């Protein structure tokens, strides 16, 4: 099959590789019909996520048709059309899955020792996202092996197009959980969202779905701000004095909740650019710092943006003295996929709004630099594995 393979910093190739096969009794094999490049793939492409190895197949947003099932798969059958969540979970077997904390499942990361060395304890396995989270071959490919097939993949049993349901694989649930973490009081809460990339866009729309009185979106790119405004958000150019703008838009209170949908490669701080380049810090937490400072007293900071390691100069004194609450984590996908599919079926949201580019999988290596450098007003790339 063809697959998009990481070959080093800023170097990806489409290669012919072996087809995946069933390795464990609860696996299935999915023939991929649609797959996408995620903003978090930028961190991989740029070489900021440790334990990624040359030759790893990337991609964690994919859907397709089940073509093979392992002997212990009970719910899925060959021919089922499924969307696959990016985190792998054992179901309600470990105590975290039992509590719907699926992204920190105990039993799906074969490289738990790497994760525990770096983070203390190991989160769940993730497709195509370095060996720290399992080293699972990703979904920017024509086929993928999906462990615990009865737990993760969600069956699509109607004729909704791939475009409408594909983003149930990551960015819609991720934006939704970020908004849910804001503890929105309908009709009253004001939510500020740093970053109007795909996750930010879904966070904005989810905040409105959950009843936010106002959503303020912050980004440097006009096309991304325009997409946020189309959802009803007020926007701020991140080049402005964000604190003063936010105060002006909230009667001086500041936003009740802030969402950092940017993560470890924020722009805007030369200090962090230099330190990250010199490997003196692993992440550039510019958006997070700003979010902490700007959030209203006793407010919430919700972090769907990916961080990899150690952060420098986080204003923890501000967070402590203002009494902030932090909510974060990889998305507990299996908790959100079904209710969010319902929202799509009920036409409360059409996730295809975010797609700006369609590229054949065979040209995915060209799509990466376009997306990473945000050329051609690129916001979301969908790859066609058949083309």
């Amino acid at each position, binding site marked *: 099959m063809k697959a998009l393979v990481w070959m080093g910093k800023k170097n990806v190739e489409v290669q*012919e*590789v*072996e087809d995946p096969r069933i390795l464990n009794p609860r696996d299935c094999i999915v023939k991929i019909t649609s797959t996408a490049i995620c903003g978090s793939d930028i961190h991989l492409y740029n070489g900021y996520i440790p334990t990624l190895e040359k030759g*790893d197949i990337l991609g964690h947003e994919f859907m397709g048709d089940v073509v093979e099932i392992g002997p212990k798969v009970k719910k899925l059958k060959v021919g089922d059309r499924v969307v696959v969540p990016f985190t792998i979970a054992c179901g309600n077997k470990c105590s975290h899955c039992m509590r719907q904390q699926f992204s920190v499942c105990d039993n*799906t990361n*074969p490289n738990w020792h790497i994760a525990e060395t770096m983070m203390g304890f190991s989160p769940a396995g993730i497709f195509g996202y370095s060996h720290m989270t399992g080293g*699972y*071959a990703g979904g920017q490919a024509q086929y993928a092996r999906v462990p615990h097939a009865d737990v993760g993949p969600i069956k699509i049993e109607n004729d909704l197009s791939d475009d409408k349901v594909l983003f149930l694989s990551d960015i819609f649930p991720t934006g939704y959980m970020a908004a849910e973490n804001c503890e929105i009081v309908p009709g009253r809460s004001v939510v500020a969202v740093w970053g109007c990339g795909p996750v930010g866009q879904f966070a904005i729309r989810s905040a409105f779905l959950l009843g936010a009185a106002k959503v303020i979106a912050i980004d440097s790119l006009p096309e991304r701000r325009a997409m946020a405004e189309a959802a009803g958000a007020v926007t701020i150019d991140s080049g402005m004095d964000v604190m003063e703008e936010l105060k002006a838009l909230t009667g001086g209170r500041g936003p009740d909740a802030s969402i950092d949908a940017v993560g470890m490669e924020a722009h805007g701080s030369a200090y962090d650019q230099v330190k990250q380049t010199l490997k003196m810090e692993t992440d550039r937490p510019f958006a997070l710092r700003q979010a902490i400072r700007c959030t209203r007293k006793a407010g919430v900071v919700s972090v769907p943006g990916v961080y990899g390691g150690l952060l420098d100069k986080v204003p923890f004194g501000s967070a402590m003295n203002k009494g902030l609450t932090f909510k974060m984590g990889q998305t507990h996908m299996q908790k959100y996929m079904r209710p969010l599919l319902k929202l799509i079926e009920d036409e409360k949201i059409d996730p295809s709004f975010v797609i700006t580019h369609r590229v054949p999988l065979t040209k995915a290596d060209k799509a990466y630099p376009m997306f990473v450098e945000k050329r051609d007003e690129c916001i979301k790339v969908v790859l066609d594995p058949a083309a």
Partner: protein
Amino acid sequence: MATALKNSPSGAATKQSAARASSRANVASSRNRNVRGITVVRAATIRRPAAELYAFWRKLENLMQVIKHPVTITSKSENESHWSVSAPANQRVEWDAVIVDDERDRMISWRSQPGAQVENAGSVRFEAAPGDEGTEVTVSLEYDPPGGRLGAAIAKLTRDSASSQVYDALRRFKALMEAGEIPTIEGQPAGGPQRPRKGRK
């Protein structure tokens, strides 16, 4: 998962006082004081009943499923078993073990028989975790490392130490008992330098 890895001083008296100093060390059975060297303690909480976990462990051959390092375990009688572990340079380390304490659904302890290439002793305990967390499984292993402490230090550097092997076996045991399978990526496709390519695009 928790770890305690310490070099026990030789001499039974010192060793006992060291054991008293740490409650965790108490799981290392004091009756194994004839084994000198290194003590490893690892724990995992498994959301299955103690009886089920005990039953798996009591059939010692089952441990071959969860110990990743190549090992052959053969039961010779109800309480006696033979262990053969592969070692560097095509060597094998072998010993006979005997179960010295066996409390149904609660704990098993064992030690190597005289003449073992690596003297060792250990125990596994199954204790109820708080609330609905399941069962706390604590494995304690004492062994005399080949090559003494220097050998153990080298082994630790290469992660091929008893500590990480006990740890890995416990994690795999947990996954097998809870999720029914041990997670793996061995045999999956990869590109570039990891695997010979079928051809370029």
